[in-house]
C-alpha cells in the first residue's frame, strides 16, 4: 500500500511517515500544502492520501478542498482527512454520496496507532473511517419521534461502529462479541430503523449515514 502525506507541521508529518513506514506502508511522498499534494498525487498515484484539513496559506479548509478535488479527478485514490476538530456537517459534506475509500478522523486518533493503521488500511481497501465523535454528534441530533430511542444500548454501540465504517468482523473484535450475536444486532437495528438490508459493508455505511443525517 502506497501513501502520500499532506501535513504542514513537519514534526507531525515525519512522525506519521515513520509510523506508517514501521507498519510496512510505503510513504511515496510527504508534502506541506495543497499544490504540492496535487502534484504528488498526479506523479505517484498512491492508494491513500492522508491530508490535514488546515494547511497554508489560509489555514482554513485547503485540505478539505484538495480532498474533494482529488476525489473528482482520481476516484481510485482513497482519502483520509485529519482534523483538529471534527464537525458532523463537514463530515457529511465530505462523504457526500460516496463513503467508499474515505475517512475523516480527529488528528489525535493517530496516537492509537493500531486503530489508526487499521483505519488507513480500511480506507485503502475501499472502506470507510468515520470519527466516533462525528457519529456521536449524529446520534445527538434531535429527531421527533426519535427511532434511536427504540434501540437497546448494545444496538446503539453496534450502530455507531457501523457508522464509523466497521465490518461485522471489526465490530466483533471491538465489542468482544460472537459473529452470530453481531449479525442478530444488525438485523434488529435495520428492522427497528426501517432500513432495507444492505448486501455489503459499503452500502451499509451509506444506509446508516443517510439515516443519521436526516434531522
Amino acid at each position, binding site marked *: 500500500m502506497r501513501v502520500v502525506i499532506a501535513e504542514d507541521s513537519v514534526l507531525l508529518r515525519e512522525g506519521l511517515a515513520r509510523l506508517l513506514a514501521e507498519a510496512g506502508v510505503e510513504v511515496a511522498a510527504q508534502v506541506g500544502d495543497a499544490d504540492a499534494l496535487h502534484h504528488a498525487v498526479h506523479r505517484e498515484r498512491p492508494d491513500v492520501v492522508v491530508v490535514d484539513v488546515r494547511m497554508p496559506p489560509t489555514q*482554513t479548509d485547503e485540505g478539505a478542498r484538495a480532498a474533494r478535488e482529488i476525489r473528482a479527478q482520481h476516484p481510485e485514490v482513497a482519502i483520509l482527512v485529519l482534523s483538529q476538530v471534527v464537525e458532523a456537517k463537514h463530515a457529511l459534506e465530505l462523504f457526500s454520496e460516496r463513503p467508499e475509500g474515505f475517512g475523516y478522523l480527529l488528528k*489525535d486518533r493517530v*496516537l492509537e496507532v493500531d486503530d489508526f493503521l487499521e483505519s488507513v488500511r480500511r480506507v485503502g481497501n475501499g472502506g470507510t473511517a468515520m470519527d466516533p465523535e462525528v457519529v456521536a454528534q449524529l446520534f445527538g441530533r434531535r429527531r421527533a419521534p426519535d427511532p434511536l430511542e427504540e434501540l437497546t444500548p448494545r444496538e446503539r454501540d453496534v450502530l455507531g461502529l457501523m457508522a464509523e465504517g466497521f465490518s461485522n468482523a471489526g465490530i466483533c473484535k471491538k465489542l468482544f462479541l460472537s459473529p452470530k450475536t453481531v449479525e442478530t444486532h444488525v438485523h434488529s437495528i435495520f428492522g427497528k430503523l426501517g432500513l432495507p438490508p444492505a448486501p455489503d459493508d459499503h452500502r451499509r455505511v451509506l444506509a446508516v449515514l443517510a439515516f443519521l443525517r436526516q434531522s
Partner: protein
Amino acid sequence: MRALRLALAAAGAGLGVLAYQVQIDNLGSLTSPTRALAIVAVAWAFLGAGLIAWARRPENRLGPLLTAAGFALLARQLRYSHDPIVFTVFFALGELSYALAAHSVLAYPSGHVRGRAEWLLVRVGYASMLLFPLAILLVYDGSERLRYMDLRPHESVLVVWEDMGLALALQKAFVFFVWGVLAILFIALVLRRLARATPRARRMLAPLLLAAVVFALRAVYEGIFIVVDRPAAIVDDVLFWWQIAGFIALPIALVAGMLRARLARANVGELVLELERTPPEGMRDALARALGDPGLEVGFWLPERREYVDGRGRLLVLPSEDGERAVTRLDHAGEPIAAIVHDASLVDEPELLQASGAAARLALENARLHADMLAQLAEVQESRVRIVQAADEERRRIERDLHDGAQQRLVALALQLRSGQRQLGEVADPEVSRLLAEAVDELQVAVEELRELARGVHPAILTEDGLAAALESLTSRAPIPVALDVSEGRLPAQVEATAYFVACEALANVVKHANASRATVSARREDGVLVIEVEDDGVGGAHAENGSGLRGLADRVEALGGRLVVESPTGGGTHVVGEIPCAS
C-alpha cells in the same frame, strides 16, 4: 439726545399751535376748528410716536424719520399763509411730509429700507415731492388761486415766467404722478412684502396693511380733488375723517410694532421661569414659544468636537442664511455655547434675541451639557460595539493559535513518544514502556482539553459556516436532547457570535443547574432583529444577575443595542431570550 428730543417736543407743540392758527386765519370756510385741529393731531401723532421710538430705540432710524414726518406735516400747514416768503418756502417743502411718511413705512421695522424697488420708490418720491412744487412756484403768477389751496391767490417769490395755465397743469400732473402712479406702486410694494413674509414676520408686518389702506384713501381723496374743485360735503367729510383716523393710527401702529420686541420682554420673563422647569430636550420648544418662531432650532456647541448638535446629541449643520432662516450665535466668555437657527425676521429684533439668549443661557449651558452627554453616550455605544468586535477577533485568533500551535505540537510530541514506545517494544523495561504510555495518555487528555477550550473560546465552525451550523454542532453535542429551530443565512459576525454565546451559556446552565429532560434552542430574524431563545423544562430559579455568565452576555447583547431577558420561575423552567439588532 434727551435734551434734543425735549426741545423737538416743545418745538412741535409750538409749531402745532402756529399751524392751527395759520389754517384758521387763511382757509376761512374751507376748514373749521375741528378740521384744523385734526390735521395738527395727525402731525402730533407722527411727532409723538417718532419721539417715543427715538427714545426707546435710539439706534433705529424709524424714530427720527417719523419725527421728521411729523414736523413736515405741521410745516405743510404754513403754506396757507399769505406772506409770500412763508408761502413759497412751505409750499415747496410741505409735500415732503408724505414722502417721509412713506419712507417710514418702507423702513419699518428696522429703520432701513430693504429692496431695490423700495429704495427707488423712496428716492423718486422725495424728488417728485420737492421738484413738482418748485416747478409750480416758478410759473405761478398769483392771478388765480391754486387748486384746493385757499379762497385767495398767493404770491410766489420764485416766479420766473408767469403762466397760470402751466401752473395748474403742473399741479394736475403732480397729483396724477404722485397719487396715481407712486402711491399705487407704494401699495403694491407693501402688499408684496406682506405676501412674501414668513408667518412669524407677517404678524409683525400688520401695520403695513394699515399703511396701504391709509395711502389708498389719500390717493382717492387727491384724485377727487383733481376732478372736482369742491366735492360734495358728505364725500369730503367721510374721506377726510377716515384719512385722519388712519394717519393718526399709522405712526402709533408702526412704533407699537417696533417696540413689540421690547414688550416681548414679558415673554422673556416667562421664559426664565419656564426654563427652570424645562428638561433639556424642551429647550427648543420653550425658546420657540418665547420668540414666536415654531420652526426654531437650537444647536449646542461641543468644544471637543468643534461642532453643533441638537438636543438629542445629533449633529446639526447650521444652514446658510438665505433670507428665510438666520443664525444667532450665543457666546459666553468668548466660548460659543449655542446657536439658534430662527426666522430671518428676528434679525430685526436683536434685543429680543439677545434677551432670550441671556435668559436661556444657564438652561442652554445645562442643555448643552446634556446634549454633550448624549453625544458621548453615542460614542461610548460605538466604542462598546468596537470592543465586542475586537474581543471576537481576539477570540478567533486565540482559537487559531491553539489549533495551529499548541494542539498541533502536543499531538506531534505524543506521536514521537508513541513511536519511541513502540520501537522499544518488549525489549524495554516494562516500567519505561508504562511511563511512556502514561505520558501519551496525558498528552491525549491535554489535546482533548485544548480542543474543548478552543471551541469554547470561538468555535471554528461559527466563523466558517455561520450561526446555524454552529448551533447545530452545539446542540448535537449536548448531553440532553435539544430541539433546534434556526433560520439559515449569514449575519454580521458580531451578531452571530453574540447569539451563539448566548445559546452556549444558556445551554451550559441548563445542563449544569436546570436538571432538565429536554431543551429548545431557536434563532430567527424578525424585523431586523435576531431573536435567540433557549428554553428548558427544568427547575427554574435562574437569574441573569447572580454571577452567572449571563450577566456578561447581557452586557454583550446590550453593547450591540439589544437586550437579554431571563424568565425563570421556580419550578417553571428557564426561558432566555436575547434580541440583537441585525440590520443587514
